[in-house]
């Protein structure tokens, strides 16, 4: 990033400003712009979320404030601002106030490396994907500190659950992320998008995409993985003692996180801003990214509002005994097949100039391997499920016999 390549910087410098200072101001403006995007989007997304949830549950949702209830979120914001901020007497005040800030910051920081268009990205770090994983791991810390600082047993219990959950699901998340990195041969976000010029990674490695989807969904702590705030068990978990705007910040962080995940899914597996004419019209590119993210965001909402909550032991078993081994095997299988394809000259290097037709052979092979893996997986699961049901049935039968004998 050079001063002459940034419009604002160039403008300021021509006005007689010190180049260093001009660069700094240009950077500052860029930062403010990039930060505003998720924060403004979230206001709209809260309305979308409530509307979709309502429709899925056969309700109307917000429809009083403004047309279609569009201004509902603003009403909610005014409400939150005029609420009293209660800090419990026993809480650790400094840490208590620090936690909601950290939870928003950890999510917003991800936006520094998200490519909006071919020419607009906060900063295209060489280690973009790793940066995302690293920054997102700070969110766990925010929840941990919130639970601890509240000095409340439910909050602490909630915080422990989070750490067990978020930390566990980070493993399949990263293993799933390794696959697009391997295909693109880079961790840079723009490189990953450019690598999908010929073909979206979703069509090559759908299993990784599904793994990333599930793991990132668990990372946000929403249903069916919403043990963090299981209302019926631990009231609201880590944020039980938070009120007013501080609670609002945890809330906002969660929404921004879900939307960020949708954008990341779009970038890693659905070609990011790629689309016809995207290279010439940045606005069109932004629209493509927005549309893809919106569809994925809708699926996140759909999942959230459809599946029942799992138990904590089921959640952890599912991760450590299913997703982790599966994601490891997935990485190895994709790596193996990819290497063979490269040795046989079937695989083409994936970059901005890759032709759609050239990618078809490798896509077909990778897709077939993925389908075979998925099929084997489902067959195995079905088998296991059938066995488990048989055992259950046998036990039930025994219970009935025993109960009958006792009754006599």
């Amino acid at each position, binding site marked *: *990033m*050079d001063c002459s390549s940034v419009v604002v910087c160039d403008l300021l410098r021509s006005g007689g400003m010190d180049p260093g200072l001009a*660069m700094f101001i240009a*950077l*500052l403006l*860029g*930062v403010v712009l*990039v*930060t505003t995007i998720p*924060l403004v989007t979230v206001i709209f997304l809260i309305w979308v979320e409530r509307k979709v949830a309502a429709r899925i549950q056969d309700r109307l949702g917000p429809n009083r404030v403004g047309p279609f209830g569009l201004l509902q979120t603003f009403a909610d914001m005014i409400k939150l*601002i*005029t*609420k*009293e*901020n*209660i800090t*419990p*007497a*026993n809480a650790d005040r400094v840490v208590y*106030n620090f936690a*909601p*800030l950290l939870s*928003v*910051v950890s999510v917003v*920081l991800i936006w*520094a490396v998200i490519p909006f268009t071919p020419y607009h990205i*906060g900063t295209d*770090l060489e280690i973009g994907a*790793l940066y995302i994983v690293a920054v997102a791991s700070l969110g766990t810390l925010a929840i941990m500190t919130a639970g*601890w600082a509240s*000095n*409340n047993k439910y909050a602490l219990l909630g915080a*422990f659950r989070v750490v*067990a959950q978020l*930390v566990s699901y*980070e*493993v399949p998340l990263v293993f799933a992320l*390794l696959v697009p*990195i*391997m295909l693109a*041969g880079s*961790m840079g976000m723009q490189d990953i998008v450019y690598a999908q010029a010929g073909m979206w990674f979703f069509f090559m490695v759908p299993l990784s995409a599904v793994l990333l989807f599930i793991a990132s969904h668990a990372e946000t702590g929403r249903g069916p993985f919403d043990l963090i705030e299981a209302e019926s068990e631990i*009231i609201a978990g880590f944020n039980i*003692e938070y009120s*007013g*705007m*501080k609670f*609002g*910040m945890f809330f906002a962080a969660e929404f921004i996180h879900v939307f960020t995940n949708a954008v990341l899914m779009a970038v890693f597996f659905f070609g990011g801003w790629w689309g016809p004419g995207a290279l010439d019209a940045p606005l069109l590119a932004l629209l493509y990214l927005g549309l893809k993210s919106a569809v994925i965001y809708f699926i996140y909402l759909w999942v959230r509002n459809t599946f029942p909550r799992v138990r904590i*032991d089921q959640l*952890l078993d599912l991760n*450590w005994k299913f997703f*982790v*081994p599966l994601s490891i095997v997935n*990485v*190895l299988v994709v*790596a*193996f097949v*990819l*290497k063979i394809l490269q040795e046989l000259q079937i695989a083409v290097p994936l970059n901005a100039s890759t032709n759609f037709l050239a990618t078809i052979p490798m896509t077909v092979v990778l897709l077939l391997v993925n389908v075979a893996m998925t099929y084997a997986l489902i067959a195995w699961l079905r088998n296991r499920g059938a066995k488990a049901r048989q055992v259950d049935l046998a036990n039930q039968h025994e219970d009935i016999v025993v109960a009958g004998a006792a009754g006599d």
Partner: protein
Amino acid sequence: MNVLNEWAFVGIFIAIAWVFPALPIIIARFFGPKKPNAIKLMTYESGVETVGDTWVQFKIQYYLYGLVFLIFDVEMVFLFPWAVAYNELNFFAFGAGLLFIFLLTDALIYAWRKNALEWS
């Protein structure tokens, strides 16, 4: 210098990012009422008076999950450069990666067998 400029953006980002969540909280301070009393400030545990200390010892199970995660976290760090360079590597490199992951899968199997991954 080029690389550092990219990171200057991140540095400023980290500094600025705190302002956005802090702003609404500070604004709320001016608009919200402030009438604390002893009962309001009590720890809320379903309306029952809190018993004993909150910061007590907890289930060791959480710690075990943390340990297993830590090992995998370090493993993933090694695999990132491996994945980035993968297209330029030969079959030997695939073998090296395979062995690396295989050795760690051993650890997972050990943890599994020893019931370290069991919740109760």
